[in-house]
């Protein structure tokens, strides 16, 4: 019984950390939060696919300032 209780405690604490801390505060779904519809998301990704400087150095994209809350 003690083992069972210990494991359940670990599961509950882990799930709380993963969903209530990591997901809620640190791991936002960027596409959902920073664009209001699919057209904007598509436009952004098309900009990434076509708008970079062709040198492979990185994106010249609209920088999304996602701060850890």
């Amino acid at each position, binding site marked *: 019984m003690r083992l069972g209780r210990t494991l359940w405690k670990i*599961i509950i604490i882990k799930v709380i950390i993963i969903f209530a801390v*990591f997901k809620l505060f640190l791991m*936002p779904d*960027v596409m959902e939060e920073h664009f209001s519809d699919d057209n904007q998301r*598509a436009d952004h*990704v098309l900009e990434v696919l076509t708008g970079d400087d062709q*040198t492979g150095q990185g*994106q010249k994209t609209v920088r999304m300032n996602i*701060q850890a809350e």
Partner: protein
Amino acid sequence: MVEQLDLSLVNWARAQFALTAMYHWIFVPLTLGLTFLCAFFETIYVKTGDEEWKRLAKFWMKLFGINFAIGVATGIILEFEFGTNWANYSWMVGDIFGAPLAIEGIVAFFLEATFFAVMFFGWNRVSKGFHLLSTWMVAIGSNLSALWILVANGWMQYPTGMAFNPDTARFEMKSFFDVVFSPYAISKFTHATTSGFALSSLFVIAVSSYYLAKKRHVLMAKRSIAVAAVFGLVSTTMLALTGDEAAYIDAKHQPMKLAAMEGLWDGTTDAPIVAFGLVNAMKEPGDAHEPFVFKFEIPGLLSLLANREPGSFVPGINDLVFGNKEQGIMGAREKIERGRQAVKFLAEYKEAKRAGDEARASEALARFKEHQDYLGYGHLKEAKDAVPPVATTFYSFHIMAAVGTGMILIFLLYLLFTIRGTIEQTGWLYPLGVIFFFLAFVAGEAGWVVAEVGRQPWAIQDLLPVHVARTDIAASNVKLTFFMFLITFTVLLIAEVKIMLKQIQIGPKEVN
């Protein structure tokens, strides 16, 4: 390519994904294999009625339960990372990944969770037959969950069954069956799950060896070793066969990965396999450096492995970078030119659509489609960017293969002495069993390194490089979560090890 430590955002995002995937892969293989072993043990109990087999089955189920409880939900963080660190990629592949990941969640939740409860809490509450069915359902359910994840990963390595929509910038699934039954999906699923079976068999062997060494629970240990040695031997044989299939597929669709795995810079007929060697870290495409400091080769074997044709040509890194007209190989240099055309016409199409110029849009779309297979190359700076880290890929592959070969020997030895009835007198073998249990983890992680480092620079082979796939966010965010995940997973791992060791020390309950 000289592999340098680069602290840019993309590498922190890579490192974070690698960290979470590697920690996840510590828990998963034990789940995949131990469920089947528990099913075997319980099947023998039900057929024989021998309560010792029930005691044995319940003990291993307890250890499985510990691993499952601590490992469950660790994989969900990987899905969170898709949305945060790899938003562009996540958008583009949503239509492809959505179905497999949804099915994985449903299968895991309904099948596994339901029967998991019966398996653990249903002893003496349900019939023997229904309890046994539940145990088998947990085994099948957990492996089916793995299938869908590996279907998704297989698609990244060999994108198929889809079409790129230039209006939405998404890959749209055209054939579910092409995605599920792609050669990569089948190969990855069979290879990854059998690696879990082998690792779990070694776990049972290692713990049982401990009991034999301490002269505790001797009958349980001998019986466990007998079943695990057979399961392990069959699994490692399957590992070798599926590994061969994986290399054959890599030769067809990811020849650069295969070349890196073998440190093959200049393609050749009658290509040898490097059994072991020390790669020259200074070697770059097209230079005069020797590829190896030293190596020991087996002649002709790579041609056989890659093409199943003795003496056939196997391209090297230089052939794939610069091209080889004689062998009909288009080099990365030419692919980059075509990729840049794809990017250019995609941009023109986008502009034309915005301007409402349908004729120009139609022309641009037609030109884009001529080059779209090389879209990803259009984002590479130079041809050598198409080369993955060679040393990492080479050593990981050879470590994995060496340990896999050693596993076959270990299982053979345990089985041999079990058949002879002398396993209790082979104390010298027990430390080897324990060592190979830990080496199995190393091999499993090394295998994933081959698969994922070997496919660099691609997030989607040939279509999307990693640096384009990532979200443009502050590196500090990624660093913060990297270290938080590191701490969380390390705490979980320490907890698992402590709880497991304690339960192993206590041992199985006596039969009532």
